[in-house]
Structure formats: structure tokens, C-alpha cells
């Protein structure tokens, strides 16, 4: 761990610059992707990536240069490129950052169980093969796949104000999916995949429930194939955590990103229905809604001590009892807007600059068990596991679809329905939050695939949530 630190320190100390502030962010990451599809192992894919971004501030104007050449000459060249660029864009620069303070913090952050070994590649493949082989033989089961992604990331941030911030993290992404088809219709059921990932060791695979799950997942895919379509109309909606994470992500997370509110993303990821003046005033949801930026849950995907700009990370309520309090805005956005934010300035790697991103964005648990949530529903539907997501560029009008639906009548779960979709408007939807599950319904989930930014970046984000009930939501099925 941190094998490069001494050399990086030495080379950073050897850099020469006239900039008032400069930094080096070195990122080394490796990834291993294993998969067994229809009982055949796909070729394993490994990757090793390493490089550094040099960022300078010259007369209040910042610019960067990213390079994989980590020699003294290579780093110095990148630093000078960044300096030249900062001077070139100065007449056109949007921001004057001369007054923005720089961090001088020094800290190491390491994932839980980082040092615990994971099983060998052969053992991992064996585990996936066994899971794949346990999918029952049925001609309607046309596709299935068991997969395991493993990523290691080490980052070192050094700046000319004396900061040295390092983190070493390990991420696992177990997954399983089964598709059933009758030639006309097809239905898929999955576990993990894009809806689940955590930091830590191999205990994550156990927490995901991958081992031994294939038979049940396959059976559920077949049940869906035979199920009627979701009926149309207004119903109470019980969302389980693996759909809540998407609901939080799209209709709370993105609209609260301060760079969107400041207009940076209007050409690509979009803007927000939330205005800067709404913080401290807007009743975002019902009084049951409590949303936190929480980097302290060790296993959650985006737990860290400092963000990529060097801001210390701590748990903060973004929404408390339904009232909107603060945005997802890192140090730069806080400087630009004058609002208190959080430590969420993040980059996907050494070749992209940090911007405001979601990190761990969670809903705090309430006080009702799953049985109590069900009992409070007279005419409703339970949905679990996201499969489709679409929301407007202001993050207001949304339509989401799930893999699994189950009708609820008079407090009891009834028949399974396929193609469960629902639509709504963010600004109204959260005000319909009628019940929040307790800790027994709470799950720590996350996705490796949150895209945003120009140039584009994909980052890992964590979402932990209980099951939640929303009153009178417009639900509907598919055509098939």
C-alpha cells in the first residue's frame, strides 16, 4: 500500500513553479472483471492504470494537465503545460480564485478489511461457475450470468500548501442475472450488479447474498414471465431499498448538485429544479424525509475522509424533517455560492478534474418494520430492483421501472406483476412520503455507474436506504 508515496513526495518537492498554488493528484487503480455466462467463463479482463493530474492556480485562475509520465521531467512538463494554459485562459476565466483557501491537511484513509486477502482467481471463478450451474434447466431460461468485479484504488494528493492526503480503497461488485423468454416476451431478474457494490473484503459477496441465490433468481424470472402486466392507476407505492437507491440518486442527488444549480452542467447532465435560494426554505418532502451525506459508513462505496480537493468529509443532513438545508457542493461550489456544502468534489481518475458529485447519499431509517409498512397500505404495489430510469434535465419529471412488482391489498402482499413502472415529479413526489422503514429494512447499496461532467466521468456512489411508502403514485405496466 502507498508504495509510490516516497517517490511522489520527492518528485513533488522537485517541481518548480511560479503558481501561487499547485497540486498533484496521483491515482493508481487496478481492476479485475470475472464472469461466467451460461456456464462458460468469459475471458477474464484485468486493467492497471496510473497517472497524475497537476493543477495550478495562477493569479486566481486554475488549469490542469494530466499525464501518465510520472518521471520528474514528465511531471514538470505537465505543471508547465497547466501554467501556460492558466495564463492563456485568464482573460476569459469565469472564476477568480485568489481568495479561495487551500488545504494543508495530512491524513490516510483505508477501506475496512483492506488487508484481508480475497480468494484466488480460480476460487472466484469456481464460485461463479457453481452459481451459474445451479440455474435450473428450463428452455425458457435463455441467459444467465454470475459476475464479480474487484477494484483497488490508491490516491495521493499533495499540494504546495503542505497537504498530503492518501486513500487506499478496495471495492467489490458481485452480480447475478437471469433472463427468461418465451420468444415474444422476456423478463430478467437480478441480484447485485449495478445496484450493489461496497468497500471492503470478500465479506461483501456474503452480504450481497450471491452464493446460493441463482435458483431463486431464476425462479423469479420465470414467475415474471408468467405474470400479468402491472395495472395502471394511482396506488400507494412501497419501494424496497434496491429501487429507493435509484429514486434517491435521480430525484434528490442530482438536483442538489451545486454545480448544476450554478449552471456548469446545463449543456450535458442538465440543470436543477432547485434554486440556490431554496436552501433553508424549501420543504422538499414530508416531515419523514431525512437525507444525509454520510461518508462514515465504512463499507459504503463513497466513504472517505477527504474529497479529491482536500476538503474533510463529515456526515451532514441535506434534508432534515423534509426541509432542504444544504447542497451537494464541494469547496469550490461553496466559494462560488456562499452556501455551506459537503466534501463531494470528486474525480473518476487521474485524467479528469474533480467536480461536484454524489458520494454517499442516504435516507435515514424511520420506525416501521416491513410488516407495519405493508399493513398501512390498503391498495398498493411493492416494487424492487431498478431496471429503467429516465428523468428530465432539471431532475423533476421522472419515470422509473423495476424488475419485480407485487400488488398489495388491505395490508397483504398479493400477486406478482411484470413491467412495474411509475412516474412522478420530484418536487411533489417526496411530499407523498408516508412511511419510512426501520433499520431492519435498511440496506447499504451503491452503483459504480454515475455519469456526469464535460469531459465525461463515471464515479462510484453509495446509497443506503430503508424501504419507504409513497401515497397515490401513478403506476403502470408494459405493452406485452
Amino acid at each position, binding site marked *: 500500500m502507498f508504495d509510490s508515496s516516497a517517490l511522489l513526495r520527492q518528485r513533488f518537492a522537485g517541481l518548480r513553479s511560479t503558481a501561487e498554488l499547485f497540486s498533484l493528484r496521483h491515482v493508481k487503480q487496478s481492476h479485475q472483471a470475472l464472469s461466467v455466462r451460461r456456464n462458460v467463463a468469459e475471458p477474464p479482463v*484485468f486493467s492497471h492504470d496510473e497517472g497524475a493530474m497537476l493543477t495550478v492556480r495562477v493569479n486566481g485562475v486554475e488549469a490542469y494537465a494530466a499525464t501518465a509520465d510520472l518521471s520528474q521531467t514528465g511531471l514538470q512538463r505537465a505543471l508547465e503545460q497547466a501554467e501556460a494554459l492558466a495564463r492563456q485562459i485568464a*482573460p476569459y476565466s469565469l472564476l477568480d480564485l485568489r481568495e479561495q483557501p487551500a488545504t494543508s491537511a495530512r491524513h490516510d484513509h483505508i477501506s475496512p478489511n483492506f488487508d484481508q486477502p480475497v480468494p484466488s482467481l480460480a476460487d472466484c471463478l469456481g464460485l461463479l461457475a457453481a452459481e451459474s450451474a445451479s440455474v435450473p434447466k428450463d428452455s425458457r431460461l435463455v441467459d444467465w450470468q454470475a459476475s464479480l468485479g474487484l477494484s483497488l484504488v490508491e490516491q495521493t494528493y499533495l499540494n504546495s500548501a503542505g497537504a498530503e492526503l492518501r486513500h487506499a480503497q478496495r471495492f467489490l461488485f458481485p452480480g447475478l442475472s437471469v433472463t427468461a423468454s418465451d420468444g415474444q416476451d422476456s423478463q430478467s431478474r437480478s441480484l447485485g450488479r449495478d445496484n450493489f457494490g461496497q468497500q471492503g473484503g470478500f465479506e461483501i459477496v456474503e452480504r450481497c447474498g450471491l452464493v446460493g441465490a441463482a435458483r431463486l433468481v431464476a425462479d423469479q424470472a420465470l414467475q415474471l414471465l408468467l405474470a400479468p402486466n402491472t395495472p395502471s392507476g394511482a396506488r400507494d407505492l412501497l419501494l424496497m431499498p434496491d429501487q429507493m437507491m435509484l429514486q434517491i440518486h435521480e430525484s434528490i442527488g442530482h438536483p442538489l448538485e451545486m454545480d448544476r444549480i450554478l449552471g456548469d452542467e*446545463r449543456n450535458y447532465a442538465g440543470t436543477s429544479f432547485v434554486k440556490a435560494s431554496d436552501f433553508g426554505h424549501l420543504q422538499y418532502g414530508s416531515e419523514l424525509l431525512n437525507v444525509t451525506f454520510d461518508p462514515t459508513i465504512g463499507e459504503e462505496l463513497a466513504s472517505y475522509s477527504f474529497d479529491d480537493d482536500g476538503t474533510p468529509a463529515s456526515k451532514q443532513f441535506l434534508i432534515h424533517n423534509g426541509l432542504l438545508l444544504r447542497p451537494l457542493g464541494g469547496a469550490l461550489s461553496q466559494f462560488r455560492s456562499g452556501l455551506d456544502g459537503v466534501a463531494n468534489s470528486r474525480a473518476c481518475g487521474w485524467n479528469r478534474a474533480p467536480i461536484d458529485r454524489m458520494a454517499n447519499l442516504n435516507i435515514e431509517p424511520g420506525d416501521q418494520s416491513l410488516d407495519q409498512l405493508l399493513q398501512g397500505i390498503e391498495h398498493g404495489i411493492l416494487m424492487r430492483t431498478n431496471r429503467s430510469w*429516465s428523468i428530465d434535465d*432539471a431532475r423533476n419529471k421522472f*419515470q422509473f421501472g423495476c424488475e419485480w412488482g407485487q400488488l398489495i391489498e388491505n395490508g397483504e402482499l398479493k400477486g406478482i406483476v411484470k413491467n412495474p413502472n411509475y412516474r412522478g415529479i420530484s418536487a411533489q413526489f417526496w411530499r407523498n412520503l408516508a412511511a419510512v422503514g426501520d433499520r431492519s429494512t435498511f440496506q447499504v447499496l451503491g452503483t459504480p455507474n454515475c455519469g456526469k461532467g464535460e469531459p465525461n*466521468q463515471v464515479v462510484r456512489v453509495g446509497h443506503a436506504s430503508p424501504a419507504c411508502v409513497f401515497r397515490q403514485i401513478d403506476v403502470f405496466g408494459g405493452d406485452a
Partner: protein
Amino acid sequence: MKDVFEALIADVRLYLQADEQFTLGYSAEQSQFVRFNHAKVRQAGEVSQASAQLRLIHDGRQAEQQVTLSGDAQLDRQRLIAALEQLRQTLPLLAIDPYLRLDESAWHSHSQQEQPLPALSEVLALLEREAGDLDLVGIYAAGPICRGFASSFGAIGWHQANSFNVDWSLFHENGEAVKANYAGQRWSADDFTARLRLAREQLSFLGRPAVTLKPGSYRAYLAPAAMDEIAGMLCWGGFSAQALATGNSALQRLYNGDAQLHPMVSFSEQVSGSLSPAFSDEGSPRLDVPLIQQGNAMQRLVSARSAAEFELRANGADSYESPCALSLAPGNLPSEQILKRLSTGLYISNLWYLNYSDLPAARMTGLTRFATFWVENGEIQGPVSTMRFDDSLYSLLGSQLEDLTREREMILSTSTYGQRSTGSSHLPGALVKGLTLTL
């Protein structure tokens, strides 16, 4: 950069053992990225990156490793050798891969285009002059892109091009916006200026009083950029041999012969003449492939792996079996008659954030974004606020399709996830009798 690639090939050959085979992919770019907000520079940087994708094949087994290259020949050789060694140790742990198929032909392909790119100072000054008074937001991305491929069978491909992509929006003070793009390999300050001025003209329409629509079915014109979003959904497994064989394609009913699109609809993968490399990431020469002809399914995109698994013939598709240069044949509607033929309905410049609400039924949902107008009797009345649609492809490009435009637009991908994309699409606009708006 080609000499760097050739040195890597030589290194791999040198350290290869008897009976081992390899493929080596190469990707590199030097990029200037400049983001704008309020017509000022929000963030600027330069990125220099290169990577090699080494696949080792031995005894019916294969594994792949991607390594970032530093630019230092000796260090990169060490990284490649280390990758080779890790792959060599991995292969015995694997079962024989029944779907391993290799293109053993010694094909050669070479394309090198070094048209000069503009100086950044020229771009910044031009933007300041033409749009300094506007609320412009977007990105300028430019620089050389290289892709290479080599195999132990003697295949070698090289693709190098300088390219630029300026992608921007102009925002009206009422929050409405018009989207524009200027991209390619041959920079012309005059052409860029013309695009900027056209966008400025379009902005004036957005100041008219907004029109509010209720959910329902509306006659609509979908501009090529909006069609690109629909085509993008089809690229997401629609034509993939694997997805079609496993119930995961939105076009499975079309390819099963259970559904048809309008006879005017002919899609093809048109690699020749596009900006994409002439070879796939798997190391096969790409082919022009007719996908849908006159509304009926034709070929599918077949990778070497799918060819083995589903007993098909590979046709140069990437491993993901997604088109890189999707083309939709033109129709008969002259562009200057779009408003007249639309008469009363929606003029939709762009769509946004599409996804499937029912994949086997090819039913998709998404939203209008940027300049969408309500038109009455061929006259633009005013902008329409964001609306959601939810409709089937078999309706939009089937029973409800009235015409496609005679002129098409070549749309170059603005994607920069990981690296700058070389993908493109060549699409007409579409006039449809009914588009279902739901929210």
C-alpha cells in the same frame, strides 16, 4: 505515435513463447478540454493518455489485460512484459473457452489524417467575439486520437486523426435553450462562426410566450439530433447477436419476423466514410452491414464470440456488438418544407434521457430537451416546456411514421467517457403522425 505502437508490437513478439498467440490494441489521445459557463471558461485542462490492451491466447484459453502507458519506452516495455506474465499465469487456471475464435487473417489497414487543429487562442477569441454577450455553456474538446491493432497472425491496423468537437447550448433568460454542435476533422473558423450565428438566431424564437401541453398524442417532427437519441437506444443491444439470441434486444420481435417497421426505414452500419477506425476492438476489419431494410430485419451485428456461441458468421462487430456508425436512409421530405408539412404539432430539436419502459415491446420513454416548439399552420408559436413521451418504436418508426427528411445530418459523438469517442451517426429527421406524451 505509430512508432510507439510498433515498438510495443515488437516487444510482445519478442517475449511471446512458442504456441502462444496475442492481440494488441492501442488507444491514445492528447486532448484539450475547455468547459464554458456563461460564455466564460469554467474549467480547462490538457490530458495526455495512452493504453495497450493485450490479449494472450494459448491452448484454447484467453485472458486480457489493459495497461496505461507512460510514454517511457523502457517502463512501458516492463509493464507489457509484466502484463504478459500475469496473463500467462492466469491461463492455466481457466477452462478451455469454447467460444474462442480468432481472426487469423493478416489484414492491413492504415489511416492517418493530420489536418491542423485551431489554436486554442483562436477558439477562445472567436467565442468571445460571437457569443460573449450570450449565456453560452458547453465544451471544446480537441486533439489527436489514435487507435491501433495488431495480432500474432500479422494483422495490423492504424487509425490516427486530429479532431475537434465543440458542443454548446445558448440559454435564454427564461431558462429555455438551443443546442448546437460543430465537430469534425477540418476546422473552419467561418463554418464555426456560421453555426454560432445560426444558434443565436434560433435563440430568438425561445423568447416567445411558452406553450403548455397536456398529455396526449401529438403530431411531431423529430430533428436528427432527437433521432440520434432514439438510434442511441437501438445501439444499446438492439442489433446485437447476443442480445437477440438471449431475449435482451428491443428488436427481438422485428428480428423474429413478428413485427415490422415502416417500409421507409432502412438502418445500416455504415463504417466506410465514417470517422471510426476501419477495424474493431476485437481485431477484425469492420464491414458495412445492412441491419434493417425497408422495415424488415436483415443482418445483426455479430462478434467473433457470438459467432461461435450462436453459430453465426462474424461481421466485424465490436465485442459489444453496438454500431459505431449507424445510418438511417433518407426519405422524401425536403428540409425547407418541414414546418409546412408538420402544419400543427411539435417541432422537437432534441430528446433526452431515453430508457425502455417495456424492452421486448421496444417501448421507450424520454423527454424533450432544448428547443421544442409548438407549431400551428406551419408557423412557430412558442417554446414548449419539458414533456415526457412514452411510445413504441413500432409506432414511431412504424405505423405513425409519415416521412423522413431528404437531407441527413452527420452527428459525431460527443462522448468522452474514458476517452474521446470516434462514433457517429448519419440520420434524417422524422415526421410522425402521433407521439404519445404522458407527463
